[in-house]
């Protein structure tokens, strides 16, 4: 069967965006319509003609209809709404795979980790400068305590960050 060229697919994509198809559906609709056009081209139509026939059913009205069904059928239940975060609500019916959803969800922990790490590094730097001016070192002084707290804060933040990365990767490969 004849395959659509990337330019032809792009044209179809533009049309879908133009008539107001949203993120969640656009890729699937694109594949669906491209398959249909390929089938019609196989039966002997030229691309333009095949596209026009297929797109006759896919006008603004049909897409709007699809969205309405979609939003009533798939809306979050009361139970889910009660548990949902603001991010869940904002990103309902939107493309979560794009990345913004993950970034937003990870924002709080990322900020906390960054804050702890910055604080820890600062404490380590202070202890080091103190050591350089004094030339003596003891873990049982104020400087030593600051150094120890700093280094454990940095370790904690890095481990937490690493675990989060691992978790994210597991989620995405599933």
């Amino acid at each position, binding site marked *: 069967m004849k*395959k*659509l060229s*990337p330019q032809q*697919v792009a044209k179809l994509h533009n049309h879908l965006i133009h008539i107001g198809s949203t993120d*969640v*559906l656009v*890729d*699937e*609709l*694109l*594949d*669906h*319509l*491209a*398959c*249909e056009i390929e089938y019609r081209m196989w039966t002997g139509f030229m691309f333009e003609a095949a596209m026009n026939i297929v797109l006759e*059913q*896919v006008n603004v009205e*049909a897409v709007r*209809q*699809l969205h309405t*069904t*979609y939003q009533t*059928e*798939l809306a979050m239940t009361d139970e889910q709404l009660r548990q949902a975060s603001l991010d869940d609500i904002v990103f309902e019916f939107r493309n979560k*795979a794009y990345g913004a959803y993950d970034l937003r969800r990870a924002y709080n922990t990322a900020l906390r980790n960054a804050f702890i790490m910055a604080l820890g590094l600062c404490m380590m730097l202070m202890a080091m400068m103190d050591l350089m001016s004094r030339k003596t070192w003891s873990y049982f002084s104020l400087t030593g305590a600051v150094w120890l707290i700093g280094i454990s804060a940095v370790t904690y933040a890095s481990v937490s960050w690493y675990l989060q990365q691992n978790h994210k990767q597991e989620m995405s490969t599933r």
Partner: protein
Amino acid sequence: MESSGNEFIRGTLKTIVLKLLAEPGPQQPSGSRRMYGYEITQAVKERTKGEITLSFGALYPVLHKLEQEGLLTTETEEVEGRLRKYYTLTPQGSEVAVQKVSDFERFMNMMRSLLQLPSRLVTAP
């Protein structure tokens, strides 16, 4: 049966989709198969000899709803430069598929006996 046919399909679309996915596919003889949206519409069209054509507007809400309910899982793959989303039944989905099909068969039997003339009337003089 164009318009009334569509009316009946709306109620049974879930069952149709689950049943199609529950059948052993050509690639994986054991277990359930994976299909994408257009493939499902084609399978339905082929089996009913073109009598029933699912519109994308009816199909995708049902597929996404089933996914949300945890009966289907999806995997997205790039095919010929486009993203294609494949649907597969989860273990729970397979159970529900069996359940739905047997429910529907029972329903069809009931409808058949409803549509037949009562035997009392037929044999009456």
